[in-house]
């Protein structure tokens, strides 16, 4: 055996929603970086579908489960070794940091304590307060009365969720006391052991950054602006790099916050931060001291080999030694849009609305010389039959009617026939769109809007969620029909706006689009 120092890299296990192929990408790049730096790289993983478990990716591969015991057994055999890297293998590997560390295993890069800090709400909030970094006001409560008190203090709308579930499950936005009380009564089990978190819901842009820290300095390869407003899970939002509507002040603040947080949390390696912006002010909603879903995408469009740089930081080489200037990396010229891809056609009983819970299984990238062109390509790549044909069927909640009007005017101006249901139709007709045709609801007998969808008339469905249970039951049926027919269904007006922007910039055909290699886009 060689006398190189050995490093064990833990993979991310099976592909599942929320933990996809991106973590395999990160694992493989970490291994490559280790080998290039003269280390012996050892992989432990159990997923047969991946590159990380290919026979020549690492110096040694252990096809083994990823539990503490299984890892410790491998480590016993690999003694003496330099350490274990957990930050590239998603939550699977991250979850092993604490038990391995407790067993005396050196965790390379951010320590188990840094990881715990980000996940411990109280400690994390205290740190943010000390650093003067804002997060949405909020508190944990254990009964309905306290929830109402907190909500009154911070103001409606509020975001409520159980503190014990991850991944956005059972998260709701409540806009008044009645809704809040009903959530506390029916939606969740609440007890002193299972508190509910009540946070101010900030209606604003969601922004995400991935950064690399060497423990002192911090490099931000890029900032990604979400297209759907906060409230849609980051994994299910479309996102654009570079940001299209952030002020310099906001960006500077994000860089400052990220840099100070990374240092305070002793982050060495990668860190992902999600912000929601109110005006110029970014509020932190989540920090993960590990690689994230967006690392491959950001690496490719900025040209910063993020995992390699992070791995070198983990091995002790500073950012400056690697030739990087700390702070925000210069922005690239060609915009890139990431869009989620769903597998709803394969699953019955799953509602295809966007919300705080992640539902997508994959993603694609569209890149071009302007934002609308990149958007257009992204929409094509995620399955929209651009330029869309057929009619647009609109049925939106009362709260969304004013906002939807200019969008529908835009689509109508592009020549799309518009159908709308009862209230939405009346509203649009009275707002100066006499040509909007009324589609009957399911409860109004046939032919109704389901027939329009099944008959092939509809090319796009725009439907937002109503709080009214009866209306919502119909909404679910309509959305289901759209999935069955393969008709795109948008449940966020922000996605509809993006689609309109893409279509109005290139109304007739996809012709005129060029293709370029990843390198050529980087060259500008």
């Amino acid at each position: 055996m060689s006398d190189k120092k050995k490093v064990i890299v833990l993979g991310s296990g099976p592909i599942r929603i929320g933990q996809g192929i991106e973590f395999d990408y990160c694992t493989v790049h970490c291994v490559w970086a280790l080998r290039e730096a003269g280390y012996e790289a050892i992989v432990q993983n159990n997923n047969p579908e991946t590159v990380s478990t290919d026979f020549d990716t690492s110096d040694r591969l252990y096809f083994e489960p990823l539990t503490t015991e299984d890892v410790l057994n491998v480590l016993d055999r690999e003694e003496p070794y330099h350490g274990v890297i957990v930050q590239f293998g998603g939550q699977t590997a991250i979850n092993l940091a604490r038990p391995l560390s407790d067993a005396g295993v050196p965790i390379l890069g951010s320590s188990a304590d840094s990881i715990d800090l980000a996940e411990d709400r109280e400690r994390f909030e205290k740190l943010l307060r000390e650093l003067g970094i804002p997060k949405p006001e909020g508190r944990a409560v254990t009964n309905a009365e306290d929830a109402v008190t907190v909500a009154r203090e911070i103001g409606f709308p509020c975001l409520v969720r159980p503190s014990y579930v991850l991944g956005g499950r059972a998260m709701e936005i409540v806009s008044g006391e009645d809704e809040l009380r009903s959530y506390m009564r029916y939606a969740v089990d609440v007890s002193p052991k299972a508190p509910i978190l009540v946070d101010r819901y900030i209606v604003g842009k969601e922004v995400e950054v991935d950064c690399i820290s060497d423990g002192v300095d911090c490099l931000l390869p890029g900032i990604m602006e979400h297209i759907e407003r906060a409230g849609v899970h980051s994994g299910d939002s479309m996102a654009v790099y570079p940001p299209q509507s952030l002020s310099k002040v906001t960006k500077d603040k994000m860089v400052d916050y990220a840099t100070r947080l990374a240092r305070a949390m002793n982050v060495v390696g990668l860190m992902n931060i999600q912000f929601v912006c109110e005006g110029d002010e970014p509020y932190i909603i989540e920090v993960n001291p590990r690689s994230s879903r967006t690392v491959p995408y950001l690496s490719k469009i900025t040209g910063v080999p993020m995992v390699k740089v992070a791995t070198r930081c983990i091995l002790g080489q500073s950012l400056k030694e690697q030739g990087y200037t700390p702070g925000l990396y210069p922005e690239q010229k060609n915009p890139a849009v990431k869009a989620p891809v769903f597998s709803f056609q394969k699953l019955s009983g799953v509602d295809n609305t966007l919300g705080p819970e992640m539902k997508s299984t994959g993603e694609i990238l569209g890149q071009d010389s302007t934002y609308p062109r990149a958007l257009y390509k992204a929409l094509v790549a995620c399955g929209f039959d651009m330029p869309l044909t057929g009619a647009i069927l609109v049925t939106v909640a009362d709260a969304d009617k004013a906002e939807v009007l200019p969008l529908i005017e835009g689509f109508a101006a592009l020549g799309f026939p518009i159908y709308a249901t009862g209230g939405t139709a009346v509203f649009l007709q009275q707002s100066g769109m006499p040509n909007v045709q009324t589609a009957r609801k399911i409860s109004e007998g046939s032919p109704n809007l389901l027939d329009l969808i099944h008959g092939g008339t509809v090319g796009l469905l725009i439907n937002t969620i109503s709080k009214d249970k009866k209306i919502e039951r119909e909404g679910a049926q309509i959305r289901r029909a759209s999935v069955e027919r393969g008709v795109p269904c948008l449940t966020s007006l922000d996605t509809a706006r993006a689609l309109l922007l893409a279509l109005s910039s290139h109304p007739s055909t996809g012709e005129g689009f060029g293709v370029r290699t990843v390198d050529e886009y980087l060259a500008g």
Partner: protein
Amino acid sequence: MPKDLTIKKVMVIGSGPIVIGQAAEFDYAGTQACRALREEGVSVVLVNSNPATIMTDVEVADRVYIEPLTPAFLAKVIERERPDGLVPTLGGQTGLNLATELANRGVLDDYNVRLLGTPLSAIARAEDRERFRKLMREIGEPVPESFIIETDAALRDLSRQSGLPWPLIVRPAYTLGGSGGGIAHTVNELMEIGSRGMRLSPRHQVMIERCLVGWKEVEYEVMRDANDTCITICNMENLDPMGVHTGDSMVVAPSQTLSDKEYQMLRTSSIKIIRALGIEGGCNVQLALDPHSFAYNIIEVNPRLSRSSALASKATGYPIARVAAKIAIGLHLDEIENKVTGKTLACFEPALDYCVVKIPRWPFDKFVSADRRITTQMKATGEVMALDRSFESALMKAVRSCEIGTLSLLYKKASLWSDMEIERLLSVATDERLFAIAEAFRRGLMIEEVHQLSFFDPWFLVKIRNIVRMESRLREGAVIVLTDEGTELLREAKQFGFPDRVIADLTGKTEMAVRARRKSTGIVPVYKMVDTCAAEFESHTPYFYSCYDAETEA
């Protein structure tokens, strides 16, 4: 034949975004294939819309395009790059469909791009249901009788036909998750399920086929080169009998319950099929085998790399994608070195001296409202694989790799199930069936009873019951397990794949105590090498699995 020197630049199409049915396996296969092509001095143009892949790295291909996967955009890449050839079989169904479309539109001819590897005609023969059936009949390979029905009248006519091969499986076209189908045993049931299926199908279409209920589902991974040399890489047996998509089935490799005669019969048939189709590269043959006779049926053939070929590669250490890529540029199996061993050639069939278990990973933890039944359309997002010397321990490793909140066959919900519920969970496949089988044994059901309900082969059921029996042996041995008297029990539990944590829970000890005792008595895993040749030759694969017997291989 040496490689075709006129091929200097080759285009590879990826499989696009991860969706259910097309996951990371094509990043693995595509990346390996790109490398194999470049090894031969071929320049690779790669197109994929999925940025989260290794294959779209500038390190993997010479020219990387992250552009939409549509014929129009691919035509632009072709126009710009002028590749000499295109390998259509590396990017899953997406890549295959796009390559076919580019050929049909004349784009490939316009720019003189040759399709490499398996010819389009072979792909069409395998993909088109009718042509495939016709070919199978010509070469004397049995296929299940089937009918496509689109009207109630046609359904009525069919139901009146005499000699229908009952029972019949009804599969509605294009419904979510294949929902709305079912098995009909009588004319009434056929009318009812058939017309409901049509109503639910957006195309008003159902496929009705002889239902091979209770038959075993078996797959063979086969390779062929232009010289007509064929080899089988491995076969795989589904634990779930016919009716559950192979992507949603638990799978074991190599097959465990086939007699040698059955194994050879299906192997011969698979090779006959790959020859008749004229595939140059790899393909996957799915077969159904009647457990009570030597009857079998061909279910389908995937004339390309697939999820199963990725699994077979990892299970055997044979790099299928790499070899398929080399075959595509003209090399023959006996001219390709197996890089894993560094000793054998690609024409050498792998041999396994261990057992491999795959378990799918479903999204029902996220989608709590989803229909958990698993049927003929795939629902899993991913999968895990485990290797070990025994089936029991490979299964146990696979279960704990799934990260579904349990480290063993002890499942939180199971004790709450009523006996009725267990019966239903045994006969209607869901992601929880494995745990229901274990619970059934805990409640004293017999192998035969569980077999009647689930159609799992008794061999698998005995193994699962062994695991359950070990649970109770551990409970009973709580007092002795960490003493000298219990050393054998502890060793056996480890050989059955029981984690320390589970042993500790069953015996009321701490995990630390179990681990410490184990190590002090020398009950530690040894690591075996996956060498593709069952240690017949000396080889140096850096690829290991653990087990609790014999000594470690360096």
